[in-house]
């Protein structure tokens, strides 16, 4: 049942102008969501800089929010609906500009409810900047 609902969420996420957010209530569910997304043809990463260079070929991507990725994913999610994304990789200092292809891209953020609560305390309020949210 849950699989069906999640797949519907994946389907609905396609063609959206904002990133979607899948919130797992536990680590187990987090792993399950990973699996659903992979089944749905998504590739996953927590490294947005790598993802950016592959978005031409991979239109379906899920991005894992964790301690290393939270800040940059927040920047990315904030800019995504504005028609252009500028990101600077602090390691390489490479400044990239990316234009979303709303019709063909499907980008989903993935994290747990608990982690989301944690990062909100650090001013990264993802709920306010994403579009569709899935929570079981």
């Amino acid at each position: 049942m849950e699989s069906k609902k999640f797949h519907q969420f994946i389907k609905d996420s396609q063609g959206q102008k904002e990133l979607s957010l899948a919130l797992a209530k536990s680590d187990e569910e987090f792993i399950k969501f990973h699996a659903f997304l992979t089944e749905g043809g998504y590739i996953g990463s927590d490294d947005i800089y790598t993802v950016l260079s592959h978005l031409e070929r991979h239109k379906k991507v899920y991005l894992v929010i964790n301690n290393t990725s939270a800040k940059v994913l927040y920047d990315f999610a904030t800019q995504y609906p504005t028609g252009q994304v500028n990101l600077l990789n602090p390691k390489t200092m490479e400044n990239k500009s990316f234009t979303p292809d709303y019709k063909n891209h499907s980008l989903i953020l993935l994290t747990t409810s608990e982690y989301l609560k944690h990062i909100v305390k650090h001013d990264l309020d993802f709920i306010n900047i994403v579009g569709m949210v899935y929570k079981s």
Partner: protein
Amino acid sequence: MPNSPEFSFANIAEGGSGGKEPVQLQEDPKTELPKAPILEDEDSISYLGVKLEKSHVSSAFVPEREKYTDYINDKFSLELQQKIAVSMLQGDPILIEGGTSIGKTTTVRKMCAELGYEVHYANLNGATDVEDLMGRYIPNPHKTNPEDPEYVFADGKVTSGLRKEEGKKKIIILDEFNASAPNILIRLHEVIDALERGGEVVLSEDASEVVHVSHEDTKIIALTNPPGKGYFGREPLDPAQLRRWVYQKEVTELPDSTFAFSTEALFGIGSRTEEIPDSLYLDSPDQAISREQLAEISGMKEILDKYQEFHKAAKELIKQRMVAADQPQPFTFDDRMEPHRISRFVARFYNGDINETFQRGLRYYYVNKLENSEDRQKLEELISHVSCTPAVDSRRRAIGEPETKTPESALKTRAEKEIEDIMSSSEIPDSVKAALAGKETPLSSEILEQMKEAKEIFGNDFLGPEEVKAAFLDQVEISEVPSIPFSKEELEKARELEQMLILRVDKAKDGSDLTMEKIHGLLNGKIKDEAKVLYSVDWYKDEEFYKKDKPEVTWALVSKEAVPDSSDKNYLEQTETLANYLRNEVFKTLIMPAKYGEALREFEKEKASIARIVESDKESEWKEAARKLEALKLNQLTRQSPTEALYDLIVRYQQTGERLMENMYTWTKRRDSGGGLVCVGRFESVGVRVGGGRPGDWSGILGVSFSRSL
């Protein structure tokens, strides 16, 4: 109320209302013609009248335009774009505070996509590393041999936006500005100060490399969510730092009307661009006026005195928390920055009406810092008092200021009324009436001085009171000579364009109107060489333009011959020629008065619909075209009436013996009773001919004379 003597700025903060009448914020949009809110040509785009030049240099950092095809230009968004455009034009760093959902970043990016400007975006939320913004040394990724340096400097997000590149314009967006770490704010303020000075940014991050920066090429836009109000980590900014920015307070949530409009537009109901009343447009001439020209604007000293009082009163309102009490972000009206900004605003946007331009500036820099409508209204009320009554100096009014009834002219009107009463009274002896009737108003020394200067410029093409009187064989009444409404530069330009300066009067000596019929009656066969004034008047002897129209009492600049390239054209095409003549010749190097700007915009808006019917054979259609063409402000401002055309030809002939428009008609701004447009000209020895035609007609002997009186 605005100029009521009881009003005092000093009373405001003490609780005195200074006037309880509500201030009209906008004019009734129904009475105004809608303009295009966003007007684009190959090289520029105007946002509610504020024109920005495009950049044509392509770059990966310029947003793609097709991403914004679904952008809704509702009133809120258009006004936001206008505010951003003003800051870009002025080179002011702008800080926009507003809720997350109002589309701040999208709006800036959409404008950049249209303008071809690069976007360099940095979200300061949680950013602690100055080097991410300003740059740092990294291992050289291109090192291929031992001589290559181990490390190279790589620009940060801000540095890449600061570097000048040929033809590029760059916008640095600093998002979530008030969530920034203090060390970052300090560094960014150094950058802003350098931009303001048009100086250099020293990159301490790169062995003190000097980057030359300019606010012409780089604009900084900071975006913030309101501190508090549910936004985590948003502390108010220090007001002392805020003074560097043009702070614009936007709403936390979209106004209901905007929400409704944009939602309906998204579902295909109604337009995607909201109609905006003319009063919200802000016209930006191509060039700002100079400090010297600013000083010459009539009434400037008076308005500056009022402004100083206003500034103090506005500060006091803030200090006493009588406005902005519910805004968590503290701010003040800065004693140095605000006057500096206002002066640049007036210089840039001066539209000929100093009161209006000054007040628009105050709205931009003062009222826009306030969120709630009651606070804004309080400041609006103060602003309505920042005005001047232009002195009777229409040479300065010439650069566009509207004619304001002055106490002096009011007195004159009263005096005229008294004389009228005396003249109609049976108790006053005829000798007194005769004395009064014969009394001529002495010319003021100022007007005499103006005329002297104009005569020096125009020579024989100066047709003043003496020349007019002589031309009409002393049969005209010149009871009042208006001051010349043109600046010296305008007169010199007119001379260069082969125009003459003529005083038009409207009364014959017997007090009757100086109609075509009257001119013909007074002078036929009596002018130089006993020539005729009008050729056969048969077809129009009962027409209103012949029997009733009289000239307006004014000084006019009139082209001695038809405007180049104006013949062989229908009336609409001629109007286009006049529009180009205005833009490219008359006001090429001068400030165009606002009325001409309005007229040109109206023409641009109307011409396509007129073009569809102007050459129609259907009577109803060509007549409608003629009606519309006659009503166009551009034609009313730049063509003669038939009476004026005749008047000008005769006065000039009497003065010089030269027949102007000898082989050419000028198409006037009046229709005849059959719906055609009247033309006047071919001033041969048999007299001036008058004809009429459909607006779609054209001929090699049908051109247009240019005439303007403001």
